[in-house]
């Protein structure tokens, strides 16, 4: 198989795996924030448009 194709495929795979691991971190961290957001209260001051 063409070396270029192999390199291309491996690059795509690396991007996907590295991105996937990082995205999992994002998921965990935003999940913690989400819980805080859902349990938090609103600022009582209301802003005009």
């Amino acid at each position: 198989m063409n070396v270029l194709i192999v390199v291309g495929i491996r690059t795509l795979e690396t991007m996907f795996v590295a991105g996937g691991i990082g995205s999992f971190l994002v998921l965990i961290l935003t999940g913690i924030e989400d819980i805080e957001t859902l349990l938090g209260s609103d600022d009582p001051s209301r802003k005009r448009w």
Partner: protein
Amino acid sequence: MPSSRVRIVVATSVMLTFISYWRAAAIVLNDLGSSAFYAGGIAEQAVGKAAPWFIVAVMLFSFTVRAVYVESCSMFVRGGVYRVVKEALGGTLAKISVSALMFDYILTGPISGVSAGQYIAGLINDIFTTADAHGWIPRAAHVMFNGTPHVPVNWTSVVFALLVTLYFWWQNTKGIQESSEKALRVMQITTVMVVILLAWSAITLVIKGYQPVPWPTPVNLHFNPESLGFLKNHADLPKLFGILGILMAFGHSVLAMSGEESLAQVNRELAHPKLKNLKRAAIIIAIYSFVFTGITALLFVMIIPDSVRIPVYKDNLIAGLAMYLVGPHLLRLAFRAFVVVVGFLILSGAVNTAIIGSNGVLNRVSEDGVLTDWFRHPHRRYGTSHRIINLVVLLQVFTILASHGDVYMLGEAYAFGVIWSFTFNGLAMLVLRFKYKGERGWKVPPNLYIAGYEIPIGLVSVFLVLLSTAIINLLTKSVATVAGVSFAAVFFLIFSVSERVNRRKFALAEQQMQEHFQLLQRDTVEREALSIRPGNVLVPVRDYNTLHHLKWVLERIDTREQDVVVMTARISQFGAAAYDLSMEQIFSDYEQQLFTRTVSIAESFGKHISLLVVPARDVWSAIAQTANNLESSAVVTGLSSKMTSEEQAFAIGRAWEAMPDPKRQFVLQIVHPDGKVDTFHIGPHTPSMKTEDIHLVHRLWLNITRERGLDKVHHNDILTEALTRFARDYAGRDRDEILKELRKTSRHTVTTRPIGGDGGRPESDANPSEPTGPSDENKQEPPAARPQ
């Protein structure tokens, strides 16, 4: 020496009626939730029985894409989507990005319409089969259809999709308003269906057991020649490389998160605290879509037998799931009918959202100067951007016909638009992390700081997944790639040519505008900042051919004593209100002509006027909010070509009710082309009383004051007591009786005294500065006029 140029104040913050995060979530879920009806079937056809795991993975990944959109919404940037992406990536990539976004928006309509048609046609055929099994089908029908009567599923879907698209084309041409109330109702009904579906499925799994869903490993992936696309001659690649196969399967399932982009569109309409509410809406959206799309995808494989799941139900899997739950056949068929009704509501809504979104994006692209303003020309009667709507619907009709009702093909093409649209947004956000130094409320975590430099690990990660998926989709979706690239190329060409034409034209227009007008930019409309006195008269204008109401005002007002503010609203429809206006967004020929005509009318009266441009989501909110902010005593408008004066007053009254406090009352006067004027009070006010009612109160007062110890009672005490009793009765058991009586009274009033009748007083003589009250006792009042 003061400038002779007329000042135009351009407000740049879009005037919106704020909505709760629940409503915002409902609007987005109407788009995002609709994918549950077709994404599972498309993914399984492409990758095999393990597809539900990839749908679940995509739904989990959508939590992170949501985070990118939250960051983009927390930035304070001006201009349309083109201008914002251009700032980050430059003109060429911005045009490609907008083309991908348009492809995404335009394809939403056909796939939703055709999918709804598939559910309806499937139900019709199943009803025929059930009726036939019971012997309810006449022999003649058998002969005619060569067996059990049936409709051709794909062509029925095409016809249905065309009808829905044409219906919404006409509604959009007329200018219907997108309602968050409607979206909320649809989502409530959908939630009922989802809850029943999940509970019934759980019972089914307990009673009947389940079919295992194969793990998402390369060995369990079965790509067909279509889902291999340009790689069809290398069918062994996915298994050879392993992760490549998983990436390909992920790419075929990415459609499940289509609609996530709508989050950016509702952001601006969220009530305070904006960022917190945006996050809340995003959480609701992510959890809801994960449960609806992700869990139901697993249930399809666990419950529907392999022998029928793809061969029979591939395009209406939720209907198939309903038919394989435990319970009597007719009950399951009834539930299936409910699924079809919900599918019809949510998918038809998505067809409408597609037209509104495409129209909105192209309008803003035109304002950004990348599409000639020929497209923005308002409809002669309805004032809508009919040329853009026609173009969008034409492309959608072409797509529906070309698809022959094939949901799989439409889904593949749609996925192309979705993934590239997300990828460009991710890239723009990544670049703006370094380039944009303005206000930013929130950032995608985690972020590392090394030697003062920020490394956005989270944002880079999400972008890498999006980019790798987009690239693999280019290779594995051959039809979509050809269609998407061709579409994007055509739009890119149109944008490039338009931009060149506009550049020349803009230079000329800018020169002309600067010669005649002094443009001032203001964030919001505030009376003091605009140097306008309280008690002014607000005159909304739209069509330069119908400015008779402006003449009517100028004939009656001494502008040395009372200011006249002429306002035009730039409507940013759903799908376009993501960002505020920028001063560089050009005025169209039409707007220039409108301002020129307005000023020449004022000059012919020798009077001074102030010009104001406000961006808004709907014209009624713009009028109500501007009148409130400018402390206007009266709003004088022309009669709409598509509404009666009562309907216009009702719409403004409703917009007034939706505004936050503090609110001021004002008088609305609607001037008919024949000079007749209808007057309405907006906000709570003293109602006018019929003569006989006044006599009745007086008679009661006479009788009551004769009673011992009640000689000091006043007329208003009697009214207070009467109204208190009325409110008590209305809240109690007499409510229906009261409503019945009121209906009778109002019917009687309407038939005996026509609305807008003279009521014994010629209203056309009314001066807007001293408006007459609703002298007609029969006059219908907007909701705000009713005391609460």
